[in-house]
């Protein structure tokens, strides 16, 4: 029974990891690759760690496996966000079929922070306030 459970969970985890790396291989764009890899990868490793916790069935090892899962779930979104932000700053190309780029013109590339409104809008606004 326990062997059956381990086989099912580890197979699912391995398939998730394989899907993540196929996504990394096939996706046309850096941002799509990030969005595929972080989610599917941490899901797959989490499932494999759960399988090892079931196999050993020991308090210390279960704690270790849960600590690794917790750590992966904490750090994966942080590193994905950092990578996406830095890639946008380095002007990594978007896919040519991308429909909309919400950040276009809203990043101050010299000071590296978000302006909130686009350059054209801010010029219009300041012109308007000066006119008054």
């Amino acid at each position: 029974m326990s062997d059956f459970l381990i086989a099912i969970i580890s197979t699912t985890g391995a398939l998730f990891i394989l899907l993540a790396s196929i996504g990394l291989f096939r996706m046309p764009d850096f941002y799509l690759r990030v969005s595929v890899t972080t989610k599917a990868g941490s899901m797959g490793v989490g499932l494999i760690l759960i399988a090892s916790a079931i196999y050993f069935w020991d308090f210390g090892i279960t704690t270790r496996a849960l600590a690794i899962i917790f750590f992966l779930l904490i750090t994966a979104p942080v590193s994905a966000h950092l990578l996406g932000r830095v890639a946008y700053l380095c002007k990594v190309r978007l896919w040519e079929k991308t429909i909309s780029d919400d950040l276009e013109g809203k990043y101050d590339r010299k000071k590296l922070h978000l302006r909130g409104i686009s350059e054209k809008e801010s010029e219009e606004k300041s012109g308007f306030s000066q006119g008054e």
Partner: protein
Amino acid sequence: MEIEQYLTFGILPVLALALVFALYRFIKGPSVPDRIIALDLLITVSIGIMVIYSIITHQSTLLDIAMVLALIAFLGTLSFTFYLKQKNLEKHE
């Protein structure tokens, strides 16, 4: 003994295939962030391989190494992005 054989001949080849795909992107990747994300996935897959190997060989000590490797992956991504950001800042000044 059955589950160990299944893990050896069923799961480990799938993970090795995943490593090959990630390695292709690591070598070919058109930009530096592509390579960083491929390195991240390489380390994640190798954590999975390590855990499966610890089940096969009955050695739970390998889980500690998996934990250290997860920490190193996060720190590596953090420092690579910091380096890219600094490089980008210097280019504009």
